[in-house]
């Protein structure tokens, strides 16, 4: 299979996990130009193709530039219809999009916010802000957990892009914010993660599963 274009999505990068899982699961071939984050995305030739200067970014062989991981992943899923990552019916596609969007904005973004807040990147630490973000993150995880009470995969009975998005977000949350107690509250999400992250084509990308014993906390600088 010929390469479909150039993908800027470092394999270990958190925001790139969904798009990289899609490449792996769908068995697509992409070129991965040498890329150093925070350097190459500030250079003029990168900005010429991708003015926003962020990754994941993709440039197809025909010269179309696409940014935003979710958009690229959805395009990749559609390129490999036999993978089933994007279901056939429009209704099911809408459900996949629904979960992808909810998980990225309500789960992943709040985990990332927590991570930043605890590192003091958003100005003086505020316990209230930290708590609000944690509540939002957990509310979304709770919603997904409830949905998985009687389902093995998020949409239909086979793996879809929504499952890759959830596992990618949980990979981060399980390592940072969902401590032992948190995991006990959302067992369906944890078993979903274990199932997806050990899928033969995804195992290498997800690597050794890391579970936080204690959620990240703010460390006051001394």
């Amino acid at each position, binding site marked *: 299979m010929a390469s479909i274009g150039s993908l800027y999505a470092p394999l270990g990068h958190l925001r790139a996990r969904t798009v990289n899982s899609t490449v792996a699961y769908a068995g697509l071939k992409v070129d991965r130009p040498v890329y150093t984050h925070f350097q190459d995305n500030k250079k003029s030739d990168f900005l010429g193709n991708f003015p926003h200067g962020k990754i994941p970014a993709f440039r197809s062989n025909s010269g179309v530039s696409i940014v935003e991981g979710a958009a690229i992943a959805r395009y990749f899923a559609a390129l490999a219809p036999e993978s089933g990552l994007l279901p056939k019916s429009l209704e099911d596609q809408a459900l996949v999009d629904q979960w992808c969007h909810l998980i990225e904005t309500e789960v992943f973004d709040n985990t990332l916010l927590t991570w930043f807040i605890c590192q003091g990147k958003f100005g003086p630490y505020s316990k209230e802000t930290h708590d609000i973000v944690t509540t939002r993150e957990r509310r979304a995880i709770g919603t997904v957990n409830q949905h*998985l*009470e*009687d*389902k*093995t*995969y998020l949409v239909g*009975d*086979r793996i879809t892009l929504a499952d890759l998005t959830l596992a990618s977000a949980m990979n981060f949350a399980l390592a940072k914010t969902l401590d032992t107690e948190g995991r006990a509250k959302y*067992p369906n999400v*944890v*078993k*979903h993660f*274990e*199932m997806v992250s*050990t*899928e033969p084509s995804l195992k290498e990308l997800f690597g050794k599963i890391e579970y936080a014993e204690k959620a990240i906390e703010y460390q006051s600088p*001394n």
Partner: protein
Amino acid sequence: MSANLQKLENHLATRSYLEGYTPSQADVHVFKAISSAPDASAYPHASRWYTHIKSYAAEHGSLAGSSTAGEVFTDGSGNTPAVAAEDDDEVDLFGDDDDEDAEAERVKAERVAAYNLKKSAKPKTIAKSVVTLEVKPWDDTTNMAGLEKVVRSVEWDGLVWGSSKLVPVGYGINKLQITLVIEDEKISLDELQEKLEEFDEYIMSTDVAAMQKL
């Protein structure tokens, strides 16, 4: 052949499939032993699993693996030793041939008992922290040797004083920087600091400069 639904439910509470992370002959084996979908209110996880395995109906013959891991749920032995069922997470779910079932269950129960014994005998780890404490004197006339002596005079259970040194803070004044190891459950740093600040002929204030879990 019937299936032990409660056992199945417990197993599936934390697992997507009976064995590993993909559907296998183990799932098909138990699926076929169940005549209709388990009641979702009584067995939510088994019910979720049943619906999912049903979706593979066309592939039931071609799924990978063997039925072995499923047989433990269909051996009809509702009289599995209670301890084995509770400790479900810890035991290998190797089913054996039917005529060896009793023997296998006995060996399994023995192993679980031995494991529990081992687990309970394991000493509980004690959470400790290493702390760097800074003790500031009133001024340059404070006797620092005396100051160190009163600090070290605090002898509490779960508290071990370590090395110390004097660090200049300017104008000829030194502060005492001392390390200590505390057992988190026994010692409260706030109480310790309060206690130290009672020696007010020597000590003006104390600060926790660093703290790290051991």
